[in-house]
């Protein structure tokens, strides 16, 4: 840490950094959500399927987020668990229009919650029921029922409906996440 960094930290100018994991099946909109949360001049125009993972940064009112945007493709999902230790919060994105793979999302969530690095930590989980703009999308209530979210008793969680293309519902989720992280810290 340089001298300037330390100085700005002391003065409260530098925001506290948190590591967040962004998980979810392929084509659920993880990269689009992260892209939309970045300042408008840093956003990229076209989103392509993520290979492996990518590290993105954005800032909220009081925190600086470092997001591990993991690839959701089946063959890369075994990479997720290697980053569980470093994550201080999890964003789990669900394609609400993909009824076929809701069970797959549920299974991946179950595997995530039963992982030894996650199981005994009180780590906040934010769910985005994404793609709300699509005609056959399920409501966030229905999604939380299908994923059995009410069974998560030992971790704070929150689900919000979102439309990542327009950016609707994202800020609400990030605000909740920020509150949770700060309440854990203090």
């Amino acid at each position, binding site marked *: 840490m340089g001298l300037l960094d330390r100085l700005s930290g002391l003065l409260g100018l530098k925001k506290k950094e948190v590591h967040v994991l962004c998980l979810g099946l392929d084509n659920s909109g993880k990269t689009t959500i992260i892209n939309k949360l970045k300042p408008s001049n840093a956003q990229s125009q076209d989103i392509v399927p993520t290979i492996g993972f990518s590290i993105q940064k954005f800032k909220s009112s009081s925190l600086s987020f470092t997001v591990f945007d993991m690839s959701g493709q089946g063959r890369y999902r075994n990479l997720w668990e290697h980053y569980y230790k470093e994550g201080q919060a999890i964003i789990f994105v669900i394609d609400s229009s993909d009824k*076929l793979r809701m069970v*797959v999302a549920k299974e991946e969530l179950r595997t995530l919650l039963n992982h030894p690095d996650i199981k005994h930590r009180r780590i906040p989980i934010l769910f985005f029921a994404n793609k709300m703009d699509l005609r056959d999308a399920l409501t966030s209530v229905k999604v939380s029922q299908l994923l059995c979210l009410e069974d998560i008793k030992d971790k704070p969680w929150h689900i919000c409906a979102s439309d990542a293309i327009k950016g609707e519902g994202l800020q609400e989720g990030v605000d909740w996440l920020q509150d949770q992280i700060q309440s854990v810290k203090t």
Partner: protein
Amino acid sequence: MGRIRDKLYKSERGIASQLVETPARTSATCSGASLSRAGKLSARNLDTRASPQPGSFWALRGGWPQPVARVTPGKMAATSSSDSDGGKGESSEANSKWLDSLSDSMANIHTFSACLALADFHGDGEYKLAMGDLGPDGRQPRLKVLKGHTLVSQKPLPDLPAAAVTFLMASHEPRTPALAIASGPCVYVYKNLKPYFKFSLPSLPTNPLEQDLWNQAKEDQIDPLTLKEMLEGIREKAEVPLSVQSLRFLPLELSEMEAFVNQHKSKSIRRQTVITTMTTLKKNLADEDAVSCLVLGTENKELLVLDPEAFTILAKMSLPSVPAFLEASGQFDVEFRLAAACRNGSIYILRRDSKRPKYCIELGAQPVGLVGVHKVLVVGSNQDSLHGFTYKGKRLWTVQMPAAILAMNLLEQHSRGLQAVMAALANEEVRIYHDKVLLNVIRTPEAVTSLCFGRYGREDNTLIMTTLGGGLIIKILKRTAVFAEGGGEAGPPPSQAIKLNVPRKTRLYVDQTLREREAGTAMHRTFQADLYLLRLRAARAYVQALESSLSPVSLTAREPLKLHAVVQGLGPTFKLTLHLQNTSTARPILGLVVCFLYNEVLYALPRAFFKVPLLVPGLNYPLETFVKSLSDKGISDIIKVLVLREGQSTPLLSAHINMPMSEGLAAD
């Protein structure tokens, strides 16, 4: 119209046999009655087979019986559909290999495995399911397209579908696959799920007599009743069957005839065969997404290969019977193999450059499914068994199923390079086999009549099943699921894999083996000759022994005797005990004498000759005498004991006693 159709089927031999001959096809084509019959059949099968299989069954593994599967009936009833490994593991949701995405018993889908096709028809990365649906009573054929859980389109088909496949027509971009549906005498090709091309089978030669009759009808030279009589005459005698038009005319009532003739007399008669099965064959590249030709099997015992772009017939092959299932491998322009399972219970294997089948596998039963796995052809028969064959017709293995096979298809897991066969059984199970090893069993709430596995939606390993009652079940293979091999009861025992410590083949061994191979007969003859000589010598010696009474057992009828001598002591004086026994049942023996013959230089006996008392049958008489060794050189000799009858010089029996060395003398 229904009646016409029935009559039509009855009269036209070809089509009628299509519906009657193959059990698999009938169970799939005519849904209603015959399907429920299949269900009943399976119920009966279950009854007869239930008794030897209790809740837990045992398999011999490594010599010790171990419980390999424990199925609690209560649990089975509770879960609507579950699965278990071939070997161990209880069926519960947590350790199941499958995720239940959908189980809809009211989907109203009636089809069979050949009519299911998965592909990304629009090129948007979302794989859809196209199926040729027969309709609830086999009367409303439709092309249905499913996306995710929902039916996105359905279009009526002109005739019952026989098969549906997806194939790439051309190699240029965009590489979206086309869908081909075989229905009646035509193949309907759809691109982007829109009608694109219709291929009709070439028409067959018609009967000239029939043609004449219709020409006369056209010119009103013949009335409908005579026409009918003449046509019936042709139908019974002629070798060339009647056209569809005549067949439809024959069952009509008198009142309807006039109108039919007026309506159809101007048309020329045509005769066409129908497609029974269809598959794809790569054109000239072995890639996963290479251009493929369509291969059709027809009712007039032919196989046709179509060009993927122009839909011209590239090759025509004839078979001895009507093909029911087809399996292709290789590339059309390079080298290919076609396997056709036919209604006569045989599987014919054809190769490039052969118009006739090259190999024939006689199954001895009706085939109900044919799947090519790597280089093995897996055939299901109506005798509830799966057979594995090579493409040269060699049988590799056979596995018996617990119930009748209703549907079969290939399971290919690209990520793990696994290819296996799925077989849906009448006892509401779907079994997955890798060769003869049972990998997994899925229990379904209803018997499954069609199944396919592949990429659906965005998920790679999806299993789609339709049931007897028209239900639809979609299961997704878990990402972490691994089909363990060797856990099941099938397969060779592990001890078979242990390598024996066989010595290296030496030069001598090889030479000897070669010599044995070349001169085997001569060697055997020499051995036999020597063996006979040995036997002859033994027999001669035996006869000689009997003649000279050298044996210690006398078997003559008058004096059956047994002699047995024991020498006791260390020397120089030994005690010699002769045990003499009369082995006859009732007769005592009197008047015997015992005589010792010995070297008088070496031994001295108090009495070399004495009389034997009366021998009572069965009793053992010990006769003792002392022998003194005279030699001090440690030499031993033989003492002969002869048992004689008084007044006769030939002995009754004799014994040679090998005297031990005198140790007492040496000690002196």
